[in-house]
């Protein structure tokens, strides 16, 4: 992969720009938002976009732009930690299964199927029924369902690598499966895993929004895009703008990461194009 190649790829460029902008907004929100994010102004509620409030105000008179800015932190945090959980557990399991084969592999894959068989949202509902709603539990719920995805991807790709000549050769000179995995399998999987992580990241943003929408994500006063949409639902006839902007924020973010993922895949592995 070369920088030139990457920059010639349209998806990659657009995705990179969009995601960088979102990251920038999230960072800026730590030091500056147009209004303090928790400030209520009941008298100034449901105001349409104006010079004072670029995206209008919500049902408590809070500035929607400020809430979307701070909300981006929540989305990014939940999505990235849940990807880290999924990759951190799933990839070693997948590699282990591929390296050992046989019974271990079979058991690991069946466990994977078990997790996979649970309707994800339902399980999230049950998890939060036990532990109560909140960002941490949303992360756990989403993270658990990232595990089988990473395990499958890692295992499938590792299996195909194990039949390649350079891996067989490494085995012939007496390297242990663990060392082969570390020295030869993992480096060759890196690009694939990065692509998968990008995809899971954008799915994580969507999942977090969905969980927050049904009231299971992070709780007030921390703004969350999904919860903003839920609160907007009953007021959509009065003030459509409060349902519009949080949704757009989700779409743009997910789109950005999907484009980045697609672009990365094309750049890193031209065969998939």
């Amino acid at each position, binding site marked *: 992969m070369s920088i030139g190649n990457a920059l010639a790829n349209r998806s990659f460029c657009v995705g990179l720009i969009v995601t960088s902008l979102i990251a920038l907004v999230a960072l800026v929100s730590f030091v500056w938002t147009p209004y303090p994010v928790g400030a209520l102004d009941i008298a100034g509620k449901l105001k349409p976009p104006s010079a004072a409030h670029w995206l209008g105000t919500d049902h408590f008179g809070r500035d929607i732009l400020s809430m979307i800015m701070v909300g981006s932190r929540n989305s990014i945090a939940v999505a990235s930690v849940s990807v880290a959980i999924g990759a951190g557990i799933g990839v070693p399991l997948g590699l282990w299964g591929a390296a050992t084969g046989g019974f271990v592999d079979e058991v690991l894959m069946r466990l994977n*199927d078990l997790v996979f068989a649970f309707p994800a949202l*339902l399980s999230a509902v049950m998890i939060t029924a036990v532990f109560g709603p909140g960002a941490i539990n949303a992360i756990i719920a989403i993270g658990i369902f990232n595990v089988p995805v990473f395990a499958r991807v890692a295992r499938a790709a590792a299996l195909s690598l194990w039949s390649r000549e350079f891996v067989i050769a490494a085995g012939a000179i007496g390297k242990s499966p663990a060392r082969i995995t570390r020295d030869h399998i993992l480096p060759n999987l890196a690009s694939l895993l990065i692509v998968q992580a990008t995809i899971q990241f*954008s799915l994580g943003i*969507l999942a977090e929004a969905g969980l927050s929408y*049904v009231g299971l994500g992070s709780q007030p006063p921390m703004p969350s895009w999904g919860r903003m949409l839920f609160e907007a639902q009953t007021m959509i006839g009065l003030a459509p703008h409060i349902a519009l902007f949080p949704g757009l924020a989700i*779409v743009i973010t997910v*789109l950005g990461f999907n484009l980045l993922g697609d672009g990365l895949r094309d750049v890193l592995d031209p065969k998939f194009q």
Partner: protein
Amino acid sequence: MLTYATKRALIAILTLLAASLVVFAMLEIVPGDPARLMLGMNATEDAVHNLQEQMGLNQPLAIRYFSWLGGLLTGDLGKSYTYSVPVFDLIKERVAVSLPLAVISLALSTLIALPVGIFAASKRGKFSGTLAMGVAQVGVAIPNFWFALLLVYLFAVTLRLVPAGGFPGWGAGFGVSLKSLILPSIALALPQAAILARVTRSALLEVLGEDYIRTARAKGLSRRQVLYRHALRNALIPVLTILGLQFAFLLAGTIIIENVFYLPGLGRLVFQAITQRDLIVVEGVVMLLIATLILVNLLVDLSYAIVDPRLRGRS
């Protein structure tokens, strides 16, 4: 082939059994007592105790699990704590909403996705093809519940063409019932269609790159003929796989959409049952959904094995 099928079926049953244990254990630790919930804030302790007894909540955990499991095997899902009717009947009523919703959405998403995918594959590299895929890319990024909200705002609140939510029941007439499923199925179908269109396109492009397609082209068949006669048929396998998975997903994934539109489907039943601590209903519905998913996975695996015998060796 037969031994492979038996083995896969056995594994599926074991998975289901393990799932039942996980579901039961998980729900056992959910805080909250259905009897106390039913009787509210003024209830005396002995009234709560009597109701617990009536619901069979005082028996030991293991006995409840095995009697529930035994019931499952004979098709008896138990009796709802709150509605006090058989869980099976409740599920039957709700499936009558969720299943048509899933089928309509799947049909809708296929009807949109296949032409778009084929179009994008045939116009690869051209502006129109790129545009079609760009639209699909946006479609994938739209949360279906937000899309649902926008549909409600436009068609129900502003234009008042269709109801904003609720379901009159099939008894109220086929037409009105179908009408109340229109927006939910569109909201469910569109993001799925976007995914399916992308799969269709890439499957087609992959097949178009194969040697026999080049041979067919060399024999003088037009690009169009090759596309429809040879490529499409072969590209259908991955597309059908995705469709199968999407169906299972749709059946379980209607939960949020049913909540947006207040449809009395399986998703709302299970949500309501969890808040009412009607755990026996939750267990029944979750097991049904898991069984469906496992069954679809099994069928997909088996059909793969039929198509490609090499896959039988490795699971």
